[in-house]
């Protein structure tokens, strides 16, 4: 069991950091191991935002741990410089997690690959407006750690994880960035039974995987489809035939949010479509955590793909 949530406003920017925290905290019982957010803020002025980590929350702190992190941080920034990126801001979010804003003209995959070549570096997200934040603990503790109360944006998805088949660490936490595709992320509740087949297929196509979590497949699968010219919605429709198992997942891009359910509709999702926003979550209490009134909600059916554009 995990909990997933999404919110997209039809217009303007809103306190999506606070709202997603409320939604995820109300579903804490569905997944106490880790919490993650994919938040879409104001588009960087012609530039990119990259979130990355250099260690995990529960890594053993050996000798010179802090010094190693600092060396790696400087190496990441140096490598971006080598590729021609102009860094406009660099922030340390936690001891091991960082946020960089930079201008860059070129291939994003080369950036991600070269940066991830730095020891223990994992790019959590890379995009014009996408920022993925994930860590161990519940929503309130992650939001406090990463100052998400200040995050203003247009849409967001989130995930509370109850780890079943892979480690409790940040790499195993959702959301997953659709490496190397800009601004696309996924959260998933369920289990994919043809994980290894797709992992091998996508690795042969040149994609990298940072975790042993089956959900990472969905993000990379969508990226592969979209890099071939498919829209997010088309890629999600294809996934219903290609992915095997039980799943409900939410995928987001810079201007859209969509949900897909497998043909057994075995994983829950409750949906509210209002005039100003669309909110969806594994449980209605998550939606009611941000909309404090009686609302009309429903469950999407099996093999359904629904996408909302901004």
């Amino acid at each position, binding site marked *: 069991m995990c909990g997933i949530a999404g919110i997209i406003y039809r217009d303007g920017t809103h306190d999506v950091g606070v709202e997603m925290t*409320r939604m995820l*905290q*109300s579903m*804490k019982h569905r997944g106490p191991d880790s919490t993650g957010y994919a938040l879409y803020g104001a588009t960087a002025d012609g530039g990119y935002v990259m979130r990355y980590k250099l260690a995990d929350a529960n890594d053993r702190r050996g000798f010179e741990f802090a010094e190693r992190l600092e060396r790696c941080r400087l190496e990441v920034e140096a490598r971006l410089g080598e590729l021609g990126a102009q860094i406009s801001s660099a922030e340390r979010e936690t001891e091991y997690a960082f946020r960089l804003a930079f201008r860059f003209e070129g291939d994003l995959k080369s950036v991600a690959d070269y940066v991830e070549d730095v020891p223990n570096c994992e790019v959590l997200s890379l995009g014009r407006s996408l920022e993925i934040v994930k860590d161990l603990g*519940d929503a*309130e503790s992650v939001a406090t750690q990463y100052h998400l109360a200040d995050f203003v944006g247009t849409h967001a998805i989130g995930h509370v994880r109850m780890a079943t088949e892979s480690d409790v660490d940040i790499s195993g936490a959702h959301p997953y960035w659709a490496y190397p595709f800009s601004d696309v992320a996924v959260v998933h509740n369920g289990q994919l039974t043809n994980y290894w087949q797709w992992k091998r297929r996508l690795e042969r196509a040149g994609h990298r995987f940072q975790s042993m979590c089956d959900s990472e497949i969905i993000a990379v699968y969508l990226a592969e489809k979209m890099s071939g010219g498919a829209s997010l919605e088309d890629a999600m429709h294809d996934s219903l035939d290609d992915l095997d198992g039980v799943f409900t997942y939410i995928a987001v891009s810079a201007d859209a949010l969509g949900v897909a359910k497998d*043909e*057994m*509709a*075995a994983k*829950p999702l*409750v949906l509210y479509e209002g005039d100003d926003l669309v909110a969806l979550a594994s*449980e*209605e*209490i998550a*939606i*009611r*955590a941000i909309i404090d009134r*009686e*609302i*009309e*909600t*429903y*469950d999407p*059916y*099996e093999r359904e793909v629904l996408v909302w554009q901004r």
Partner: protein
Amino acid sequence: MATVGESRVTYDARGLAEPDAEAPRIAEIDGEKAVFDAKELSTRQINLELRRVLYESGVTDVTVLNPGAKHSLGVGILTRCRITFGGSLGYFGLGLIDGPEVHVKGRVGWSACENMMSGVVVIDSNAGSLTGAAIRGGDLVVKGKVGARTGIDQKGGTIIVLGDAGSMTGFMMQRGRMIICGDVGHGLGDSMYEGTIYVAGKVKSLGIDCVPGEWTDADTELVERKFRIYGLGSPPELQKFVCGKQLYNYDTLEPSERKLVI
């Protein structure tokens, strides 16, 4: 006070939520009627207050305002009474009830009325998957649409849905009746043993051993009576589906019935 969405719910060694919670005693009681606002209460507090007024205060008609889609509300009420929820319930609402007449002025999440024994539940809006799972008796009326596996393992009673139903509706149904006025998804009545399913709309596909049944006057009488009781207007034209009895051939008698036969 423990509330949904905050980190103040306590658990004991057995995993019992809020083991020390007590009924908040906030209901306004007027003779046999009572009303209380659940907005600031936890699930356990709401259920404790509901039980207090129904079992200890001589109340037979209680209204719960602002249930806020919290889970497991109104479960295990085993007395004849009238309960009105002034909003939506979360998952596992009204499970294991035996006797109440319940009106939900909103929606109910997954597993509404699971294992209901008797009574009446009317839901004004939609309900999630597994609605009426394993119900043994009573009437469950959903005025909106329902999710997948509605009436799974149904052992009695009647489920009426005015809207659509999802896949595997009536999966492993064993007894009772189901009336779906909208469309239904794939696998209708899959592996059903007994019981009757009526569908007005399109059926995406029939499940294993579910076959069209012959319409009788008893079917007309049942459907018209149920629609009349709940003020649902004229029933639509329905198709009847039953078990083909090619897959399983279990004895359908209850133990008490078998004794009579023997």
